[in-house]
């Protein structure tokens, strides 16, 4: 062994290696896996990791996007360009179609969110293609319920998560055995924090949709958060629409993702802002998590990611 260098991986290399290992376990253990792609930075990072895990071969899974119809157009364009650039299969399923076919009732209100409805489309899509594993970009630092979910998370036929019946997950051995009809949600970047993802994006020079960077936009101030003006929200008398320089910390639906005021135009600026910021990612930008302390726990039990 040479004395000049140490055999110690830095933390991003360790996280990367762990994620690649998990992706390959999915490839090795499942017949019909899928990578759930939202167009957000976490799933873009997953695609980057999958390139490292499987090139020069093809991905052993398609990218699947559950499109609520309320997505940022920038994110959709980015999605299509990315899939074309890497030459991998992209499957898109629309929440709008599920609403029509199943005659679902859309929630009303000012920011009528399809967040809960997308679970229906997701479960239908899993059934349509017979997916036995769905890879997602959820991180344990995002939220309390996620902090307790396993990396291989077995879901019942209804996609439901039962926190009390989780399989023990030892060393880096993942048990993906399931009964017919069940599926496994797999979270390769469980152990990454928001800052880890940004630092990795910077190091790897990963492209992101433009809305992650500061841009001018018409926004509405609502309970201290900036919501983009779009056809999907209801404007009321007295609402003051302003043009502000903003960026997004997370990319979800236009109805339930808030922007932050920012002049950060590059990754370095964003990392500085996040390092200095005193509010968590979901707390600052997700309207849907404020409903109750246990919002995520409840949604997961009902099949949500």
């Amino acid at each position, binding site marked *: *062994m040479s004395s000049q260098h140490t*055999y*110690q*991986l*830095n*933390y991003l*290399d*360790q*996280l*990367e*290696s*762990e994620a*690649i*290992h998990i992706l*390959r*376990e999915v*490839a*090795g253990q499942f017949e019909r896996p899928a990578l759930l792609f939202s167009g957000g930075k976490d799933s873009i990072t997953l695609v980057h990791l999958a390139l*490292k*895990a*499987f*090139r*020069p*071969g*093809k991905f*052993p899974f398609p990218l699947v996007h559950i499109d609520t119809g309320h997505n940022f157009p920038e994110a959709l364009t980015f999605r299509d360009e990315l899939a074309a650039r890497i030459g991998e299969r992209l499957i898109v399923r629309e929440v709008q179609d599920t609403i029509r076919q199943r005659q679902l009732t859309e929630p009303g209100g000012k920011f009528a969110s399809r967040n809960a409805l997308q679970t229906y489309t997701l479960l239908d899509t899993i059934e349509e293609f017979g997916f036995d594993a769905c890879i997602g970009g959820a991180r*344990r*630092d995002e939220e*309390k*319920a996620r*902090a*307790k979910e396993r990396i291989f998370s*077995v879901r019942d036929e209804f996609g439901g998560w039962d*926190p*009390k019946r*989780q*399989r*023990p*997950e*030892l*060393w*880096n*051995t993942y*048990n993906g*055995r399931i*009964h017919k009809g069940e599926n496994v949600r797999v979270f390769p970047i*469980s*152990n990454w*924090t928001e*800052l*880890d993802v940004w630092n990795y994006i910077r190091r790897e020079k990963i492209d992101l949709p433009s809305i992650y960077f500061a841009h001018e936009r018409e926004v509405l101030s609502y309970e201290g958060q900036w919501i983009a003006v779009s056809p999907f929200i209801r404007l009321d008398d007295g609402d003051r629409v302003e043009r502000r320089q903003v960026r997004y910390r997370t990319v979800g639906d236009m109805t339930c993702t808030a922007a932050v005021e920012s002049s950060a135009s590059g990754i370095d600026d964003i990392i500085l802002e996040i390092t200095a*910021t*005193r*509010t*968590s990612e979901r*707390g*600052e930008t997700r309207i849907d998590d404020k409903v109750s*302390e*246990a919002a995520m*726990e409840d949604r997961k039990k009902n099949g949500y990611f």
Partner: protein
Amino acid sequence: MDLLRFITAGSVDDGKSTLIGRLLYDSKNILVDQLEALERQSRNKEDGEIDLALLTDGLRAEREQGITIDVAYKYFSTPKRKFIIADAPGHIQYTRNMVTGASNANLIIILVDARQGVVEQTRRHSIIAGLLNIPHVIVAINKMDLVDYSQDVYNNIVIDYAEVARTLQLKDVVFLPISALKGDNIVSRSVAIPWYEGPALLELLEKVEVEKDVDLIRGRLPVQYVIRPQTEALHDYRGYAGKIASGTWRKGDIVTTLPAGLTSRITSIEAGGKEVAEAFAPQSVILQLEDDIDISRGDLLVNGERPPQVAQDLEALVCWMDSKPLQPGNKYLLQLGSRVVRSAVREIEYRLDVNTLEKQPAPAQAGLNDIVRIRLKTASPLPFDAYTDLPAGGGAILIDETSNVTVGACLLQ
């Protein structure tokens, strides 16, 4: 900046959640909205102080019952290190969760209540730490504020625990007096404990050396997946993908596949999407070999000295994790790295008392949270290392073929 994974173990009222909350809070890893949520919840409490323990009580079901039912993971970082905390509950019925959390840990913090001293649960947590070969142990003697920061109380506990550590042959044990509630010796040295001259907990965590814990001599690489592009340009390309469990691997090295026993030479190594001359644990890599030999998922690539054993008759210490009992004659799938083999339990040899390490006569069956020594027979040869010798090559899980559940943690001997 590197990564340290640690587990905290303590009895129900040892202040474990408070300690974790304190570490996150004092190292400024708690953000405003999380703190607001905390304050909202703490308002129901009588004393009005922020209850840091609430930071780790995740699920509503737990909050309602005031207990922790599962392993939760928490993250924080300092400029020196990123930390992953596995928070495992201390109740007797949750040995399974502690074993789970401990399996990946570089370090364990064992909390001792200064008023109680070394109790049965302290011994149990230490025994599990020893069985799982956690390389570093910090014994944090907590609630020092409740014993007037007494050096005598502290010293007596240190003496008691040193005896435990000696019996269990724990390596690298460090002691320190703390009060998680008051923040003494957590992030900075406490003025209330002037007689303690060592570093605060956070400094200990930042400085513990983990580099040497990885075995870089004996190479083990379970093959997860074979990459075969089958395109015209890469018609003959075969990449063997896996995460290096141990050892250092260089281009030109001779490797052996087990259990088949074929050998070849490494012609290229790719790590993180780039070709490299050398790779080491725990990197995920793709190897290409000189010869076109039959290798598939489940095979183990080996290099270096002291190869693993290959056997069908195995001895193992098993921590049982299922409510259905383990019985001689039962069949399970055994998964070690990427290899899954069918196996049958031949015999339970003895039960290990997790409070005393005493070997008790073999029970007819082993129940949830029991640790037993068993003899297993596998349907096909299994390459493995003794867990005590090379944990990276000897930790397996048992899976119930009918329920698909992970039912046991298996330390091969």
